[in-house]
């Protein structure tokens, strides 16, 4: 696919640009996936709602920008907070009732909830694509021959920052320790005085928060529509497995890897095969290292 006309010196430039494209995309992927991974790892719930949560975050950012003029970078707080509340309520009110059930039960439940939420969004916002049209976009700049799309780049950096913050919350805070404890042994955690149901709700809320934050960052980049929910969900799935389930570093590595794979796949085999390559690599990875790149055994 690489045009023969390119002289050799430009190859390295091209590859660097492709790599950069991939990493920028990958950072956003990581942010989409990290909340999904957290919920999956801790609650053992495959949250089908996650994609719609991301979309809802985008809508919040969109309306905040259109009506209040709040820049989507700032709406991260707004969307994150709103989604945290929604996630908390959904978990505390609904999912907690069946949280000990086999994974298929909770999967079917969140599938049902997603039908409701997604349909609700279509009714409320229509399926038409909307976009945040910034009054003052950052545009792009060229550094050393590389084109840097600034809005994307900043969004990606923010996504990484958020992810890192989440990591430290989990590792350093006592709530974070409680989340990890509940993941390993909910009964033992209860004996330590942990209110397991509340921790579940908080965890689900955090997952939704990350989805909402990702959504508001993505509102700058992708056209917004409820129909995107399933795409985001698919990405979250792949990233999680690539990186390893329930681990935050895994989500980052998985996201970046997926971005790069897709980017180079498009270059080497053609754009329509970017996803295929990612999928095939995923299967191969699963066969040889079922726990993902960063995964540890016994984590599920």
């Amino acid at each position: 696919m690489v045009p023969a006309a390119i002289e050799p010196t430009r190859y390295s430039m091209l590859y660097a640009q492709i790599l950069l494209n991939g990493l920028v995309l990958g950072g956003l992927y990581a942010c989409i996936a990290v909340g999904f991974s957290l919920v999956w790892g801790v609650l053992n719930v495959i949250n089908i709602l996650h994609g719609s949560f991301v979309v809802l975050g985008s809508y919040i950012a969109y309306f905040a920008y259109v009506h209040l003029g709040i820049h989507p970078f700032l709406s991260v707080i707004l969307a994150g907070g709103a989604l945290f509340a929604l996630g908390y309520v959904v978990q505390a009110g609904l999912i907690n009732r069946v949280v000990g059930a086999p994974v298929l039960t909770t999967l079917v439940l969140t599938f049902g909830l997603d039908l409701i939420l997604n349909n609700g969004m279509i009714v409320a916002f229509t399926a038409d694509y909307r976009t945040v049209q910034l009054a003052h976009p950052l545009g792009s700049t060229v550094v050393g021959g590389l084109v840097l799309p600034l809005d994307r780049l900043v969004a990606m950096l923010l996504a990484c920052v958020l992810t890192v913050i989440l990591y430290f919350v989990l590792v350093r805070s006592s709530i974070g320790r409680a989340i990890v404890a509940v993941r390993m042994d909910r009964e033992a955690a209860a004996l330590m005085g942990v209110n397991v149901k509340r921790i579940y709700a908080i965890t689900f809320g955090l997952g939704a928060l990350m989805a909402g934050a990702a959504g508001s960052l993505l509102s700058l980049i992708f056209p917004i529509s409820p129909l995107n929910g399933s795409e985001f969900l698919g990405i979250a799935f792949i990233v999680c497995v690539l990186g390893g389930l329930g681990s935050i570093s895994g989500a980052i590595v998985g996201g970046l890897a997926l971005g790069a794979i897709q980017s180079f796949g498009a270059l080497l085999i053609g754009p329509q095969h970017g996803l295929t390559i990612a999928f095939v690599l995923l299967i191969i990875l699963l066969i040889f290292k079922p726990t993902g790149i960063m995964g540890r055994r016994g984590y599920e």
Partner: protein
Amino acid sequence: MTVRPIYVLAALLLVAFLPLVGDNYVLRLGTMFAMYAVLAQSWNIIGGYAGYPSFATAAFFGLGAYAGAILQGNGLPMPLAWLAAGIVAGLFAALMGAAILHLKGHYFAIASLVLAEVLLEVTTSWTSLTGGGMGLNLPVIRMSVEAQAQLFFWAMLGLAVLTFLMSWYVSSSRIGFALRCIRQNEDASSMVGVNTTFYKVVAFVLSALFVGSAGALYASWVFYIEPPDVYSVLTSVKPIVMVMLGGAGTVAGPVIGAAAFLVMEEVVWRNFLSIHSAVLGLLIVALIFFLPNGVLGFIRKRKRTGADHSKETAA
């Protein structure tokens, strides 16, 4: 009490008289029901008996649909094309199963989900064989509208009955026993002499064969297939919902679940134009809360679980 498989079989056979009472639309629903029953029962083998949360149904279905369509396009008679499609799907399952069935739980779920995605991409890209994104038209059948509707109805129903017999046989054979052991504790199973890999692959293949044929039948039935439709992730998810509705790991459950799901889907779809998927979602959520073990689980609840369990499934 438990729903005896023989009653379900009788009910299935009774459905065969549908053409006497219904118009083409009813027949179409009947065909849909039979197709759902095939999918749900097949999933139940790997998902219900063996406890492997498979999302590969769409892969088998789509593969069968395309195999059947391409073979028919090349002049193979319709029934042979259906048979061949089942075999193709079965072979695919055997190959893939050997590779991914060592994965546990979620990881298996993902790998099986990815199978459909990969096939979707391959089918879309391989334009010369499959027509790619343009879809594929099947040869037109020279037959009256009514005759066609009946033909496809009976063929699909026959397939559902075959699937039922297969599932029934499995439940009372060594295979079923081995699969239940695997579901409950795979390590311990291999320690009591169960060749787990073998039985899992058998289960995976069994869950593919009939779905492949159903895919081919479906293709002949609707004349036109396209990749996003036959590889739709919903094709993988719906059978799971049906089985959960009816009762996982039982012989009768999937059939009951398929019927219940079809009725729900149809009623909701007819009565709620733009919010039908939300209403369906509500129903599903309600079912999870009020019938967590499916219809059969509900029926069975009064009796002591253990005794019934052994009666229906003891090897």
